[in-house]
């Protein structure tokens, strides 16, 4: 691996701004590394070398002109459900075919303005529906720590490329855990901002009351650096919050004095995977050593999170995905009549999991079932939100396992329900619109990463990143590793 690729994004941008390195050299190094790692990892669906190098050239020119941004010349990978003008947005679906994004997503535009180089589009579970990245209709992505294992999903490509050092940073989207779960499986930091903190304009909608765009990084500092670029109000997204954006990098700290850390004891005690439980407990002990007070807390209704999620998210998806009709974009399977073409296009273009969720959502919203399924799920969602309100009255941050296990083998989970259970710990924060992240805190015996889930109240991103930074720095000697593949 090129020496430059061992640096973090914040230091790389500093060097480029100080003319100690060039965006061209950094981008060329990443492109060469992509060529070397991709045959094994398969994180990217699309890389346009010429376009990346021309963005790098513009970044170098901006440095010379004294207009370098905070991510000057830093290659960033984008999940292929977020628009990058002129490049494909496939959502890893056959239905979108060769769709080319007609505009930049707001997050893409903000990254460009900050000087970042959009290096490529990454693989995902089709339309972001899945927990292993195996639902991609286009490609299989493998875990850089062990290529027989999945990277997690749905943002599997974005997690894998950052872990493999074939991007400094990446963007994903998180609806029920789609950033945090793959971050946990791939040993990187995955950050789901609060609902409304980051614009979703240009993100292909899956479940609109849950979707949120967020970054992957190899350090908390880099997460803060990119969040400073991404966060803020966007007139194109009326759900984006009109609230001040603190300087996330300024909030990073090295101790946890005075911090109350909430732990749901049963999550650790009843965890069948003792290695995951052990690594999380060790991280909690370390937080205490850094000055934190550990308090027991509870989320009595969180166990119903998965059931609520699969009703709510599927219902919203069935509505959002109605737009894929073969008329305005994507695949069209021709037929003698318009309505039949509509049926065939969708029947042919969507993969099995997407169809299953559209079916479930349509059923849950259909006459005679609405109150029984959707209405009830929406009421239990309220109870989960109240649980968090009560829990955060007694603590500043909640920590626990991010996933019930480490990355599993490809093909191991064939039953939809067993796949849904991967997201048991990440879903409740999505339902309540909180901010949350996965921080690498250890490895199991086979060397697969273990992530700690840290959750904070909505719009407490600055505090959450500060706490995560303190723990990350303390754990660095044991946790800081690079996969052999990189």
């Amino acid at each position, binding site marked *: 691996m090129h020496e430059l690729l061992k640096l973090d994004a914040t230091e790389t941008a500093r060097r480029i701004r100080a003319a100690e390195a060039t965006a061209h050299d950094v981008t060329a190094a990443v492109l060469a590394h992509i060529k070397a790692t991709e045959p094994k990892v398969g994180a990217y669906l699309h890389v346009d070398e010429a376009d990346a190098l021309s963005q790098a050239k513009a970044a170098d020119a901006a440095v010379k002109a004294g207009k370098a941004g905070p991510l000057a010349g830093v290659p960033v990978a984008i999940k292929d459900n977020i628009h990058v003008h002129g490049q494909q947005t496939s959502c890893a679906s056959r239905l979108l075919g060769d769709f*080319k994004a007609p505009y930049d997503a707001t997050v893409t535009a903000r990254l460009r303005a900050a000087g970042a180089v959009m290096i490529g589009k990454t693989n995902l579970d089709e339309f972001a529906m899945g927990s292993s990245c195996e639902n991609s209709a286009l490609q299989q992505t493998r875990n850089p720590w062990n290529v027989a294992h999945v990277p997690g999903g749905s943002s599997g490509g974005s997690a894998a490329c950052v872990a493999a050092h074939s991007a400094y940073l990446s963007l994903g989207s998180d609806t029920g855990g789609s950033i945090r779960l793959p971050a946990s499986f791939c040993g990187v930091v995955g950050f789901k901002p609060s609902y409304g903190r980051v614009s979703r304009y240009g993100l292909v909608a899956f479940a609109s009351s849950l979707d949120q765009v967020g970054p992957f990084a190899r350090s908390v500092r880099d997460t803060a650096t990119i969040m400073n670029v991404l966060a803020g109000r966007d007139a194109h997204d009326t*759900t984006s919050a009109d609230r001040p954006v603190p300087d996330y990098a300024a909030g990073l700290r090295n101790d946890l004095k005075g911090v109350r850390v909430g732990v749901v004891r049963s999550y650790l005690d009843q965890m069948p995977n003792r290695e995951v439980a052990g690594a999380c407990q060790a991280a909690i002990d370390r937080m205490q050593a850094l000055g934190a007070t550990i308090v027991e807390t509870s989320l009595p209704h969180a166990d119903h999170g998965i059931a609520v999620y699969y009703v709510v998210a599927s219902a919203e998806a069935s509505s959002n995905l109605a737009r894929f009709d073969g008329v305005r974009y*994507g695949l069209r399977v021709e037929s003698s009549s318009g309505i039949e073409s509509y049926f065939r296009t969708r029947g042919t273009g969507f993969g099995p999991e997407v169809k*299953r969720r559209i079916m479930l959502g*349509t059923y849950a919203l*259909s006459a005679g079932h609405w109150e029984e399924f959707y*209405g009830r799920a929406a*009421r239990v969602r309220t*109870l989960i939100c109240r649980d968090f309100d009560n829990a955060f009255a007694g603590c500043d941050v909640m920590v626990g396992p991010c996933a019930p296990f480490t990355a599993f083998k490809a093909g191991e989970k064939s039953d939809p329900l067993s796949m849904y259970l991967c997201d048991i710990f990440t879903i409740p924060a999505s339902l309540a619109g909180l901010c949350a992240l996965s921080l690498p805190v250890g490895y199991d015996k086979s060397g697969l990463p273990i992530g700690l889930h840290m959750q904070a109240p909505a719009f407490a991103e600055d505090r959450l990143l500060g706490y995560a930074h303190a723990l990350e720095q303390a754990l660095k000697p044991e946790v800081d590793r690079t996969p052999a593949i990189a």
Partner: protein
Amino acid sequence: MRAMDEATVRHVARLARLELTDDEVRRFAADMSKITDFVSALRKVDVQGAEMTLHPVVNRNQWREDEARPGFKREDAVANAADSEQNFFKVPPVIE
């Protein structure tokens, strides 16, 4: 929880505008029975006094002055369409 029968699956597929093969209908009947069975655990939760949360934040209408602004060009809007003519989307006949 009753198992979902194939007729229900076909009805829902029709509402969702999805053409399913017979094999898919059988598979979805089994999958959706399992999933709706799992979800039916929500029936046992006491939701007395709990309003529905449809959205994690309060949304308000947002207004701006009614001024013309640059928008999407028609050629860009139809660029991804399977078929278009003179910057219109072209579709098979929908009325006999």
